[in-house]
């Protein structure tokens, strides 16, 4: 029996609300099928399954909030389904199962919650707190002075913080939230931090909890909070370095013009399609920028899934992934981008598009800025910024002329790469944009 868990759809998401099930017990599913539609702070997302089999039991109903990591449903093999038909249905798994390295059996915690009285403030001299508990308390905005420690000598441990958090949180759940957990199978890319294709062993990292109540009625407010959390965390944790380079776009634009003359209007390529293809190719040459930083380790991803920043008309930003950008032709890339933009603005993205990006590209150049220095989206290690193409004075063979120039920038995570590596990438990008026909 396999478990279908609620994926984490970004560094800033920790729960979703079930809008509807697309499958019911007994339905066959295969990898990539949409099983459920979930609402998050950043909009409505179609959740895909990663396993093949038959839906066995489903555990959440429409309208219920689902924390990341919780089991949404179980998926059975044909054999198991047949067995099941004879035996009575298994009870739902406890809302909080034993999670590797985060042992807090639901029963114990639920009991503790019932009997806990408002914690007496601990005297302000030396509160013994484990480093992990201190960090979680920080993230959750919990004042350590109000937490009752149950560790040796009254020390405050992680479970104490979580209990305190659950008390203060006015939510419907009957147990403290489970912190998101990476799938135990490397095959199942549940979270961006896991880097499914590359990580040989499961990686686990507790997600940052947002201190505010997530049930904001206003979509805008929720969106901004989600972005704020992710970006604040990025700036807090990632030591960014920034590089920029000016690229003569004469050749690229000339190629584009010639190409588009041959194409009917429906098939024309926008400059950004060419830019993304060039970025993808450059990543095959400097792969260190394509991947994740997780638990002190740099995980380079073989697959290149470019997260493309798309602004929403009503405000807010999403960066869904274009899968295998390096393997797509110009036409395939254009179609993928078109489809992604439409579904992003139409609020109908798939979970894999929100989790799989191995790098992000932001192209603000369309409407006016020459350079954009971005904030890396954790756990990625780089962000490419593409500015507007403007006419600039340019020196060629000692003489001055005017060329269409674009400034490309790179924000890099200095834990993963150094300026030299980043520089190599931008050089590759420049080189690739001089020979677009070879992309």
């Amino acid at each position, binding site marked *: 029996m396999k478990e279908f868990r609620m994926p984490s759809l970004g560094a800033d998401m920790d729960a979703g609300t079930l809008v509807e099930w697309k499958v019911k017990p007994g339905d066959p599913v295969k990898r990539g099928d949409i099983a459920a539609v979930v609402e998050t702070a950043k909009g409505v997302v179609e959740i895909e399954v990663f396993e093949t089999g038959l839906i066995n039991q489903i555990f959440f109903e429409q309208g219920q909030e689902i924390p990341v990591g919780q089991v949404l449903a179980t998926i059975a093999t044909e054999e198991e389904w047949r067995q099941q038909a004879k035996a009575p249905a298994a009870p739902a798994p406890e809302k909080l199962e034993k999670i590797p390295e985060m042992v807090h059996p639901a029963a114990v915690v639920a009991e503790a919650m019932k009997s806990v009285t408002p914690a007496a403030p601990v005297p302000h001299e030396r509160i013994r707190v484990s480093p992990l508990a201190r960090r979680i308390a920080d993230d959750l905005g919990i004042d350590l002075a109000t937490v009752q420690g149950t560790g040796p000598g009254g020390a405050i441990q992680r479970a104490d913080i979580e209990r305190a958090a659950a008390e203060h949180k006015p939510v419907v759940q009957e147990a403290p939230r489970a912190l998101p957990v990476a799938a135990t199978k490397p095959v199942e890319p549940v979270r961006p931090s896991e880097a499914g294709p590359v990580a040989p062993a499961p990686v686990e990292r507790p997600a940052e909890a947002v201190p505010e109540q997530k049930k904001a009625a206003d979509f805008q407010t929720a969106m901004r909070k989600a972005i704020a959390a992710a970006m604040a965390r990025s700036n807090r944790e990632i030591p960014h370095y920034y590089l920029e380079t000016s690229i003569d776009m004469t050749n690229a634009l000339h190629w584009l*013009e010639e190409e*588009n*003359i041959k194409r*009917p*209007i*429906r098939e*024309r390529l*926008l*400059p*950004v399609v060419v830019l993304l293809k060039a970025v993808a190719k450059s990543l095959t040459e400097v792969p260190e920028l394509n991947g994740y930083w997780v638990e002190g380790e740099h995980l380079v991803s073989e697959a290149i899934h470019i997260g493309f920043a798309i*602004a929403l*008309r*009503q405000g807010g930003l999403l960066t869904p992934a274009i899968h295998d950008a390096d393997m797509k032709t110009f036409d395939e890339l254009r179609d993928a*981008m*078109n489809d992604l*933009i439409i579904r992003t603005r139409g609020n109908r993205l798939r979970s894999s598009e929100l989790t799989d990006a191995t790098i992000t590209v932001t192209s603000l150049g*369309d*409407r006016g800025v020459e350079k954009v220095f971005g904030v890396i989206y954790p756990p990625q290690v780089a962000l490419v910024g593409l500015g507007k193409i403007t006419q600039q004075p340019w020196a060629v063979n000692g003489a001055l002329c005017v060329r269409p120039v674009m400034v490309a920038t790179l924000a890099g995570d200095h834990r993963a790469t150094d300026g030299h590596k980043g520089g190599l990438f931008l050089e590759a990008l420049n080189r690739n944009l001089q020979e677009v026909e070879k992309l």
Partner: protein
Amino acid sequence: MNESELKTIVVEELSRVAPGSDPGALDGNDDLREGLDIDSFDALNFFIAISERLHMDIPEKDMGKLNTTNQIIQYLLACKV
């Protein structure tokens, strides 16, 4: 088609690529991208819609000159000749 019919079509298609905006309220000489907050993706889709609706091709080199409703309408009038 006359100018008024063309304007209606242009405003309709602009509304589709810029939902929630009011293209009809734009001054004929206002830059469309600024006025409606649309990007090149939206603009291309607009021209695709216009070309299909009016059964005509719009060469890319012309698209760069069509930045205001007046320019677009004048262009379409000239083409329909």
